[in-house]
């Protein structure tokens, strides 16, 4: 995925790489290898379920980034396309004759087609403009369809949703997908295929024009492209892959409800994609993995996980608009110049105390929450493997001191880090 977009200055008439469908193989082979090997490392069922969830989120986030990152369209209702694709798959699952006529791995394709169909209808009027107006339309349509799910019971199944059984499909080389591990490989196959297709899409002229329209629609119009249609194509393609993600969700959980298409899930996918970074193709992949881990691990530890994720999201928007991928890619110049080594010590000096300070802060937050909301008489709380009385003064002092000292040290060492950073990123000047 680290394709080089730079043109070689020594060859002025070098062919543009933009339209070529050349695929750097290494990252894809590594990804395929990891996908195959991971279940042998994490063998228990819950880990496999988490990974399934992760890969589905990866597809969905990549599809979302086709709009947000590559097309510059901010959608607040993208879960609708995934949801409708998923619901369509559930209905196909319940049509026993038709469902038995093809193997299960084909099913997400139908989800994709339904998601695409809906995207074509909505896109016909929503892609006229980008930016704020598009965002508002997407929100309105999203709300509309989510609200319809309670009214149109025949398709959305009302409050209990639609459930089905994936095992009624035609056996796929004798496999009926009874075990989560079978579904894992099905999902892995689709995640690899979809990611590759989406990557190739971003390399096609249409994908490139989406970038041009994002950056300067007026100029793209003057070049003879209709920015509206370019947006429409991106929107439809994105709807397709969102539908695939929805279909995979249906296969995994065998149930879809209103929750799959409401505004909250649309918000989550925006959060995931932005956290990962919209500027790079692999950003949403990182975002999906990190978010799913945060969601599963953090929500086991604390009731306040949504609060932390929200704070992290806001901090990302304010300080690192490139997301995690942007932060990672910031280091590429330093690494290329061979100066990244100079950053390690200042990083440890600043980030470690900062991390400790933030943990102290979160301890304070947790204690406040416990103090205010725990049942009366329940004064004991467990935090970071220690049990103490949240109404006593000592834990508060300790947490406060840790926070202050941690953040204080980070503040003192920050200028040194800044200096090291600019040193590592300036050419020449041997250390």
């Amino acid at each position: 995925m680290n394709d080089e977009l730079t043109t070689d200055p020594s060859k002025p008439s070098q062919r543009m790489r933009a339209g070529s469908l050349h695929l750097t193989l290494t990252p894809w082979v590594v990804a395929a290898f990891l996908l195959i090997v991971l279940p042998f490392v994490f063998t228990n069922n819950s880990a496999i379920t988490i990974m399934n969830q992760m890969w589905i989120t990866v597809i969905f986030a990549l599809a979302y980034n086709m709009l947000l990152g590559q097309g510059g369209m901010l959608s607040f209702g993208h879960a609708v396309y995934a949801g409708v694709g998923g619901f369509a798959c559930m209905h196909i699952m319940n049509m026993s004759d038709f469902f038995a006529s093809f193997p299960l791995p084909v099913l997400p394709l139908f989800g994709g087609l339904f998601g695409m169909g809906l995207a074509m209808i909505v896109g016909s009027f929503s892609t006229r403009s980008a930016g704020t107006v598009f965002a508002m339309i997407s929100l309105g349509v999203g709300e509309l369809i989510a609200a319809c799910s309670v009214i149109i019971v025949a398709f959305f199944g009302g409050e209990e949703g639609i459930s089905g059984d994936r095992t009624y499909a035609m056996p796929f080389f004798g496999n009926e997908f009874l075990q989560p591990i079978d579904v894992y490989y099905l999902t892995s196959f689709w995640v690899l295929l979809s990611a590759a297709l989406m990557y190739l899409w971003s390399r096609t002229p249409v994908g490139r024009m989406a970038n041009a329209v994002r950056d300067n629609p007026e100029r793209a119009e003057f070049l003879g492209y209709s920015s509206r249609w370019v947006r429409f194509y991106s929107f439809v393609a994105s709807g397709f892959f969102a539908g695939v993600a929805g279909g995979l969700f249906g296969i995994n959980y065998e149930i879809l409800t209103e929750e799959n298409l409401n505004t909250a899930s649309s918000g989550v996918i925006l959060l995931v994609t932005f956290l990962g970074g919209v500027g790079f193709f692999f950003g949403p992949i990182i975002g999906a993995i990190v978010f799913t881990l945060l969601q599963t691990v953090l929500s086991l530890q604390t009731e306040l996980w949504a609060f932390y994720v929200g704070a992290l999201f806001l901090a990302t928007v304010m300080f690192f608009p490139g997301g995690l991928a942007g932060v990672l890619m910031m280091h590429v110049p330093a690494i290329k110049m061979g100066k990244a080594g100079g950053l390690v010590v200042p990083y440890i000096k600043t980030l470690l105390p900062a991390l400790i300070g933030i943990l102290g802060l979160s301890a304070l937050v947790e204690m406040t929450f416990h103090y205010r909301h725990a049942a009366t008489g329940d004064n004991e709380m467990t935090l970071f493997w220690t049990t103490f009385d949240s109404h006593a003064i000592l834990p508060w002092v300790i947490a406060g001191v840790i926070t202050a000292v941690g953040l204080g040290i980070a503040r003192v060492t920050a200028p040194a880090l800044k200096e090291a950073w600019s040193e590592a990123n300036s050419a020449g000047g041997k250390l």
Partner: protein
Amino acid sequence: MDLILVNLIDGLVTGLLLFMLSAGLTLIFSMMGVLNFAHASFYMLGAYFAYQISIALGFWMGLLIAPLIVGVIGAGVERYGLRRVHQYGHVPELIFTFGLALLIEEMVQFIWGKNTMPYSVPEVLNFTAFSVGANSIPAYKIFMIFTSVAIFIGLLFVLNKTRVGMIIQAALSYPRTVEALGHNVPLIFMGVFGVGTALAGVAGVIAGPVLSTFPGMAFVLGSIVFVTIVIGGLGSLWGALVASLLIGWITTFAKSYNIQMSDILNGVGIATPENLSDSVLRDLWTVTSPQIADILPYILMVLILIFRPAGLFGKRES
């Protein structure tokens, strides 16, 4: 006849409440080009602050102080958050306010918990103002109407008749020229953002007792407010007023008159299919107007966007 009058009043209350939110939102939008996703969250903050203050100092102090606090918080958000994100463009700004809305909801749950707060109508206003037929109209509704109308007139006056209002209007269209004339435009932006959020705060204070104060209240109203200003035309104050009243009345009337879809279809001359429970379109036949009252604004918005993309009173396409 009585029912129509009662519904007119109810719809007016809902519409004016919506207007208080959409007025601030539309002012902020036309000035900075930012749709403040967290606008309804400030409305929620207004309700919660007023509840907290009303415990100690009573409802009226809450009405006075809570919007001020909300306005100061709003100004702070503009100064230290939005202004920083502004350099990245409009889309990150929108995402920022979206994240803010999430965070405010979580914070409210963190501080006040998930339950509905016992924030109620003050004693002074807890009586029946007058009766229409058998329906009594509570005084609090009349109070809500008068407050919103007073705020609207005050806003119009400030915007059109005072020097500050003139500068604001000028800064809406030509911020650079206004800046060149020696006015502090970033300060004006901050002020407008603060006032807009304070308006949302007022709406929260007076809506809290009737619509109940709970962590989801921002979410319930939030998207309707966006729909309102899209229907009215982004950036148009009059459009916001008309759209708010329209939505207020449409939803109120749809809820109180039980119009069956099958009656309409029969009336047009389409017969009800024999075995309705097996038909694919059975949901269409059994739809009633109270059922779809809440999604009517969205349908209206989609229609408006298809046939008149700039909105009812919109002047420009952004």
